[in-house]
Structures are given as C-alpha cells and as structure tokens.
C-alpha cells in the first residue's frame, strides 16, 4: 500500500468514477454513432440534392461538436483523474500492459476531436466532396477509439488464459494482442456498436424535435430517419446480449442471477436489479420511439426527446454498473482484486504484513490503514455500502469472526465470490477489528472526521 488513499464521504470514490464514467459513456458512444450518423445523413442529403437537409445537419453538427468536444473530452479526462486516485494499483497495471493501446487510442482521439471541429467550421467553406470526406474521416477515427478502448475494458473481465499465464512475470506486454482480443472482445464490440447506433438516434431526436420555423416541414422526415437508428439495436441486441453472456465467466453469470430471489444485502443482488432496469428502460425507449417519434413525428416534442434521453441515461448507467459489478471481486479478473491486491501477493501480505511498507504508518493507526487499504475502495463509513450499517448489531467478537471468515475464505463463506480475501498478519486483522468496533460504537471516529485524507 504505497499509494495514497482517497476518502470521498457518503458516495465513496467508486461512485465518483461511476458517475463520471456513465456520463462519459453516454457522450462518447454518441460521438461514435453520431459520427456515422453525420456522414450518412450528409451523403443522403447531397445525393438527393436536399439543401434543407444540409441545414438541419449543420445545426446538428454544432450540437454534436459542443457536446462531444467539450463534455465528452472533459469527462474522459475526469475518468483518468478519478481512477488514478481511487484505484491507483489497477490503473498502473492497465497502463503497464496497454500503454501501446492507449497511445493508439489517443492518436485516433486527437484526429477525431480535430476533425469534428474542422467539420463544423468548414460548412460552406470547402467543396462538398472534401466536407463529405471529413465526415467519413471523423466516423472512421471515432469508431477506432471504440475498437481500442473496448479491448481494454473487456480485458478487465476476461483477460484470457494466455495473458494470465504470464501475469506477474513482467512479460505481460508480450501477450498484448491475446489480452486485447480476449474472450469477450467481439460480443462486447457488437453490443457497444449497437448502443452507439441507438444513441446516435436518441441524441438526433433531441435536435430534430426542436425543428421549427422554415425547417418545421422537415421535422417528420428527420425524426423518422433518426428513429431508424434504433432498429439495429431492436433486432440484434438480444442476440448480442446472449452471445456476451455465454462468453463471460460462470461466476459472473451467477452474480447476474444472485438477485432473482432476494434483496439480501452484501450479496451483490443489485446486479440483477441493474440488469432489469437496463432491459426495461431499453424496451421503453424502443416503444416510445416507435409509438411517438415514428407514428406521430409532428407531435414529438422536446419534452419527449428529453424523456427518451433520460431513459437512455438510465439504461446506460444500469448496464455499465452491472458490467462493472459482474467482475467482482476483481478489477482484473483472476489477477487483481478490487482493493488493488494481486492474487500473487496474498501469501506475502499474510506473512510480512499489509501495512509494513506503508509511508503513513506513523500518521494513522494500523487499523485505519487496513481500513483505507482494503475496505475503502468499495465501502464508506456512513454512505454507500456503509460500514457502520453493515457492522451494526455486531459486538467486537462478531466483528472479529467476520474478519476471520473474510481472511480464511472458507468454501462456506457467502462472501467468497463477492469480496476480496482480507490479507494481513493476525495482528493487523486484530487492529482492523478494533478500528471497526470503535467506528460502530457510540462516538466512534468517523473516518472523514478523524483524518480528512492521507494525501
């Protein structure tokens, strides 16, 4: 535990990443699907000689540029900041393995952002063919960013046997392509591409629903054309989803089913619930788009498009949350746990101690160091997955018994599949037990009060 810890009261650092990531995914996947939308829309308009359509596309491209170029780019940087602070070990492991991948992604990203700006500012300033080429350049580079980031994201759930065979040896980068084209790469890419297409349509409906004045006559046509972008999802999403399910590890599939019969806390039952929200909201988007946008385009108002956007946000958030959760208790499946401890380090930490090399051992108690290092990645004191709530009604002995179960991870432990094993010497685990007992007791120290941050 050589990295600083990041204490975010109530929501925890995990939800800082979550909130930024969900917002970013909504925009970045629109950036990918929207690029193709602009290219095809412009091609159609030019082929049919529709000047009025070009004006609509020009307006949409302004909205597109602002949304993706500002909010998409800023939230993307926000993800880097937040994962670096919240999960430095995991971030470090990914960078060491995928530095070449990210270098490629940043090249494409740079071209993508620059092209988006050039595309908007060259309306009526360059000839039609050049402008159309810019549209295709944007569409191509933005899709390439998805192609690359998908490899890294899917790797975290299914790194593959080939990469796992060299994990921890220092030769991980030699299996770059095996790790990149991992078992869930292709189903994940298809799923994300379908979502990109849907989001292109959903966001386009926002601008199309506001067409008025001389462009109002185009409203029905543009809305119906945009609504068509949801058809691929409608037809292929169930197939792609089952393909993806068949490719993920069996224990991840079990996690999805954990909440079918219960809402018991501590068992990650929210994964099932998140999956249900995703299915329900996605189905509703399709229904609203069909019944309102497609059947009655002129009655499709801004309020309706914002409602669809809200549902898309809920669907995206629920899906991304479920995807992150089914990887538990790992950050990189079978290699690194969500608290940043590598599987290969467990025996060493149990023998030599988890906090032995900590630079903060003088400034805070051993119990707090253990809490910050192994609990705080997923738990807060009083908010999300509150430790005070989870430890309520347990005396010191019960807390100690629970920590023993977490440390020994017997086959009968209900937490075995959901939580990383607790590592450390008996003395450290005892210190953690004392710390938690004091936290739960009346007047016990709240982490945020006792120490604002160990940075």
């Amino acid at each position: 535990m050589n990295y600083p810890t990041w204490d975010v009261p109530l929501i925890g650092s995990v939800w800082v990443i979550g909130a930024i990531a969900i917002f970013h995914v909504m925009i970045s996947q629109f950036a990918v699907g929207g690029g193709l939308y602009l290219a095809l829309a412009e091609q159609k308009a030019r082929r049919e000689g529709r000047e009025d359509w070009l004006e609509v596309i020009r307006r949409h491209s302004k909205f597109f540029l602002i949304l993706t170029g500002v909010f998409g780019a800023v939230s993307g940087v926000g993800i880097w900041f937040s994962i670096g602070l919240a999960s430095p070990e995991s971030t470090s492991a990914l960078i060491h393995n995928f530095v070449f991948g990210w270098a490629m992604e940043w090249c494409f990203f740079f071209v993508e952002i620059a092209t988006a700006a050039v595309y908007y500012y060259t309306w009526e300033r360059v000839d039609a063919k050049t402008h159309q080429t810019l549209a295709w350049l944007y569409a191509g580079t933005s899709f390439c960013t998805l192609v690359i980031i998908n490899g890294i994201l899917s790797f975290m759930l299914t790194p593959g046997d080939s990469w796992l065979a060299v994990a921890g040896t220092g030769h991980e980068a030699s299996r770059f392509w095996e790790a990149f084209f991992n078992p869930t790469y292709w189903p994940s890419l298809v799923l994300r591409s379908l979502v990109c297409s849907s989001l292109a349509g959903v966001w386009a409906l926002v601008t199309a629903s506001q067409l008025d004045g001389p462009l109002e006559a185009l409203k029905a046509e543009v809305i119906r054309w945009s609504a068509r972008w949801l058809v691929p999802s409608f037809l292929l999403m169930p197939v792609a989803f089952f393909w993806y399910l068949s490719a993920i590890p069996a224990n991840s599939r079990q996690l999805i089913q954990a909440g079918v019969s219960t809402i018991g806390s501590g068992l990650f039952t929210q994964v099932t619930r998140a999956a249900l929200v995703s299915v329900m909201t996605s189905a509703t988007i399709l229904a609203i788009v069909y019944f309102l946008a497609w059947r009655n385009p002129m009655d499709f108002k801004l309020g309706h498009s914002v409602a669809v956007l809200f549902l898309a946000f809920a669907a995206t958030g629920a899906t991304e949350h479920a995807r992150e959760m089914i990887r538990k208790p790992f950050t990189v499946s079978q290699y690194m746990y969500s608290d940043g401890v590598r599987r290969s380090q467990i025996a060493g930490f149990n023998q030599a101690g988890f906090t032995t090399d900590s630079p903060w051992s003088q400034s805070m108690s051993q119990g707090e160091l253990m809490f910050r290092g192994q609990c705080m990645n997923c738990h807060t004191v009083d908010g999300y997955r509150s430790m005070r709530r989870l430890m309520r009604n347990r005396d010191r002995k019960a807390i100690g018994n629970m920590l023993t179960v977490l440390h020994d991870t017997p086959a009968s432990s209900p937490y075995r599949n959901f939580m990383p094993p607790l590592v450390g010497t008996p003395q450290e685990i005892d210190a953690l037990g004392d710390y938690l007992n004091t936290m739960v007791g009346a007047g016990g120290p709240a982490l945020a009060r006792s120490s604002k941050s160990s940075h």
Partner: protein
Amino acid sequence: MATSSFPEPKGALKWPDGILKWMDERLGLTELAEFARHKTVPQHKHSFWYYWGGISLLFFIVQLFTGILLLVYYRPGKEAFDSVRQITYDVDFGWLIRSAHSWSANLMVFAVFVHMFSVFFMKAYQKPREFGWWTGLALLGAVMVFGFSGYLLPMDELSYFATKVGLQIPSMIPGMSGLVNDLVRGGSQVGEATVQRFFALHAVVLPLLFLPLLGIHLFLVQKHGNALPPGEAAKPASERRTIPFFPNFFAQDLAMWLLALNIVTILATLFPWDLGKQADPLSPAPMGIHPEWYFMSQFQLLKVVGRWIPGFAGEIAGMGLFTAVLAFLAIVPLFDRDTAFGRRARLTTWLGVLMLGGMIGLTIWGYAAL
C-alpha cells in the same frame, strides 16, 4: 390544430385483414375507432395536467396486477410476517412484485393528489362535471384507506406501531372507541384479528367499492370530455387548439404510461422495499414512529393543534379542522358554480392554494420534527 396527416410509415404493423374484419363484425371496432378519431382533446399550455388521471389509473392497474400476484404467497394472520419475509427473500422476483406494489401505491397517492389539485385549479368541478368531482373525491378517500390498510399487512415493527397510533386517533372521538375495537381492530390491541380485517378490507371490500366508482368516474370523464382551464375557456373558439384523441393524444398518453411504468420499475429495482423486524407487541415503540407521507400533514396538524389546545379539546379541534377541509372539498362545486373569474371563483382558488401550501408545509414540518 396539430397535424396528423402524415402518410402511414412503411412497414407499420397491421392486423391481417381477415382477422380484423372478423373481429370488427363482432365487436364494432370501426365504430369505436371512428368515435375515438372524432373525439378531441384541448391543446394548450396546461395540457400536461391532463395526463395525471391516466397516470393514476396506470398505477392502480399495477396495484391490481401485483396485488393478485402477492395473494399467491401472502398469508394473513399469525403467518403474515413470515409470508412477506418469504416473498421478499425467497421467492423468485417476489421482492420485485412487492416493491412494485409498494412503490406504485405511493406513486398512485401522489398522482391522485396531483390530479385532484389540477382538476381543482382548472375548475373542472363546475357544471356539468360535479359528479366527476365527487366520484373523484370518493376515489381519493378509497386510495387513502387502501394505503392505510395495506401498510399493516407485512406486520413488521414500523407498520405495527404506526397502525396502532393511527387507530388511536379515531378511538378518541366519543362513541367511536367501541366501533373501532369491534369493527376495525378486532379487539383492544392491534393483532392477528386486525391483520385479517385489514386484509379483507384491502383485498376484497375496497376493490369492490373502488372498481364501480372508477367505472362511473371514467364514464363521466368520457361523457363531458376534458375541461378547459378558465384562461383558455375565455378565448374565442377559433383560437382554441385541439388534437384528435386517437391516435395523437392516445400515443402521448401511452408514452406517459410507459414513462410512469419505468419510474415504478427503476424505484422498485434500485430501491426495493425492505422488511423491518417482526412486530413485537410487548416491546416499546421504536423512536420516530410516524405515518406514511400522505398522512403526515394530517398527523402534524393534529400534533400542532394539540399543542395549542391541550387535551381532548385539542384532539377535537384538530379533527374538526381536518373535517372542515374535507367538507369544503365536497361542497366546492356547489359554492363555486359556473363563473371562471367571479368573487367566489377567486376565493376558491386562494383557498385551494392555502390548502396545497398547508399540506406541503405540514408534511415537511412533520418530517423535520421527527
């Protein structure tokens, strides 16, 4: 008028002609479609409020559907708590059905209140819609009793003590104590007999009263159509806009239903209704016992008046004030009859604002005082 004269989209789903014709000959679908097409709905800046009656109805349908499913496992009486525990923690998707039932109950009360106040401020209780207003008030009362009776059924600690406190209030009225004991509580204490009674009320008696009332209410809405708000009614007919009920308003109504259904689903899945500790009549009431949010304003009103006027007189004054509000709502169509901007109309509007503000303020105050 918003146009709907677009060509049918290519590939739109159509019933095979043969089946459609067969059904049409027997059910008169063409006449029904024709009727719906000629029926119009006013379109103006307050049109949004027209959806709330439909949304209330949707939540009721969700209640009905999930309630029937809960009946499969729920066992009133001494096994009540265990059966709800089984539904919540053992039965596949039992938690979802129970959560959807509980959330849609709360949302239905909210939607009915919004619907009532929107109807009130649009003055849609005036001639010829008086009976629509009265049946609506009766439905609101039934919804509140639905909520109160359903709240006890899990028999956990909170529902037990909240019901106990709730039933003490009418018992204080002279002559009511025996009636509450014999008819509602089934004894001097809340217990198994109370759960049996509340279950019968919740699952049999109230639906039997509610469904015909709802039928009459919907018939009256169909008969008189949507009321115009005073500002809109004052405009000349040529300046008023309408849209066809079918397919335009119907499609928008359907979209609102879908959105409302999603809100229930999102709440039920992300914030599933948990179950507290089993009720123990011998244990002291836990701190902060309070009624559901939709009874909080009445609860707080009784507390506040009781503080100003201590003792029995305070209880009576509080109940009296509450009864006066109900009486005012009942007689408002007779008081504010047919003018949009007269003295009585203005007074009624201000009283409505006072009532709404009072409800919201007392509810917030009630929670802050816990």
